[in-house]
């Protein structure tokens, strides 16, 4: 198959640009917004984050004119994540989204990981209701998939159960929990205070813990079969880009 397919192991200029945007520009905007704008303007930080995260990825992705096969594999993983979130709707915070996003990042690359995460956050809220929390969820899911992809490319994250579970648990607790709590605080507070942030973290701790445990449980059970299947599809249909 001569087509350029799902992005493989390659730290291209695009990935570097995306890394810079995600790891430097977005936190800088957050800090700038927190320091310069006052009162309700916190809200707009979250809107800016959506722009920052979506625009470069969307632009790069669209400009690349992705093949149907690549699109559809991303869509399948997103649909599985959305359906999974729906299946465990009764149990609050017990959702497999982060697990599937990490698997996507590891087997399809950082960019695909980000897209699966962000689109899952967006689409699942068509079923559960859009709101001011949507941008934050999109960002959190997306960045976890992106980091998983980068770490795997760098060889710091292995496809083993243990490695994935440890990363998944920590990423959910620290990255997802860490960011989403700031988000929920920003939505209704005027003055940023460490006390209030700490209180938000403490009140949200068990939710984040349940979420992290859910991610570990799902990664423990589904990571190996899922990765195996994705690898099989990649070999069978020549989706690997060398």
């Amino acid at each position, binding site marked *: 198959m001569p087509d350029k397919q799902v992005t493989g192991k390659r730290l291209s200029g695009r990935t570097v640009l995306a890394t810079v945007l995600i790891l430097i520009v977005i936190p800088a905007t957050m800090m700038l917004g927190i320091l310069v704008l006052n009162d309700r303007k916190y809200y707009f930080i979250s809107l800016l984050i959506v722009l920052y995260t979506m625009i470069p990825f969307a632009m790069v992705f669209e400009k690349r004119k992705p093949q149907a*096969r690549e*699109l559809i594999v991303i869509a399948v993983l997103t649909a599985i994540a959305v359906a999974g979130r729906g299946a465990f709707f009764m149990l609050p915070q017990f959702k497999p989204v982060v697990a599937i996003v990490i698997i996507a990042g590891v087997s399809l690359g950082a960019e695909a990981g980000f897209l699966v995460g962000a689109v899952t956050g967006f689409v699942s809220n068509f079923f559960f209701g859009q709101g001011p929390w949507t941008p934050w969820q999109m960002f959190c899911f997306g960045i976890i998939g992106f980091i998983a992809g980068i770490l795997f490319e760098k060889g710091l994250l292995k496809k083993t159960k243990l490695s994935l579970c440890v990363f998944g648990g920590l990423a959910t607790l620290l990255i997802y929990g860490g960011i989403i709590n700031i988000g929920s605080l920003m*939505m*209704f507070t005027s003055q940023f205070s460490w006390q209030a942030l700490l209180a938000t973290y403490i009140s949200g701790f068990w939710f984040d813990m349940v979420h992290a445990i859910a991610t570990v449980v799902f990664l423990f059970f*589904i990571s190996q079969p899922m990765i195996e299947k994705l690898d099989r599809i990649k070999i069978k249909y020549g989706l690997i880009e060398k």
Partner: protein
Amino acid sequence: MKDSFATFHPIVNFMYFVVILLFSMIFMHPIFQVIALISAITYSIMLKGNSAIKFNLLYMIPLLLIMALMNPAFNHEGSTILFYLNNGNPITLESILFGMAAACMFVTIVIWFSCYNIVMTSDKFIYLFGKVLPALSLILSMVLRFVPRYVAQIKVISNAQKCVGRDISQGNILQRARNGITILSIMTTWALENAIETADSMKSRGYGLPNRTSFSIFRFDSRDKIVLMIMLGLTIMVVIGGARGENTIRFFPSIKMVAMTPLSMVVYLVYFVLCMIPVIINVVEVMKWKSIQSKM
């Protein structure tokens, strides 16, 4: 009741919600907040009837109270100190009022979004962004299609497994869990294989070739143009009011806002009309319908 505003062109719907949500988030002035809240509640009741009333009473009022109380507990700025907490932190009038205003705003936004979810269906969203983001919009629409499809396919697989005694309803707990994972695994394999087939089918039918058109059932009529122009005019007037400081309020260290003038009255009225556009359209539509009916 049928919502006539939702039958307008998606761009009108989308613009309305973007403008309204932005304004609701920016303007902290109490009169603006009350206008937005009343309009949001009216429209949500118009859209959803009794369930909206229940939603607003059951979830929004407790949320409002909790959030109004949260702020003074952590925010101790402001010059009017009412009393001191046990740990020595002051409770100020300003922080209580700000807490109320922020809570009111949050509730307004949530209610606006509940309206947005009904009016801006995913097909409208995909239509609007299909031109700008074709690949991502395609992913979006595929995901929305895949989810119900997978749910149906899981039932098919589960029934087949039941025939050989390997369904999640058979065996002891450990076996059930294992069967469940097997079903999910079969499901994933099927989904991926099926996806590749779909992709090949799309390719053979010319996906990605230039000069292809897409089907849509939306038409930009003159009524869309009129409403869009009115919305634009009202928005500009509200923004001018905002630039003159009519719409804002300062909470800290002491509450301060521009004195009310006839001009501010005009800005309030303009904002009210802007927020009420869907409600006005619905009411006009009902009146039109009634007048046609009576003549027959």
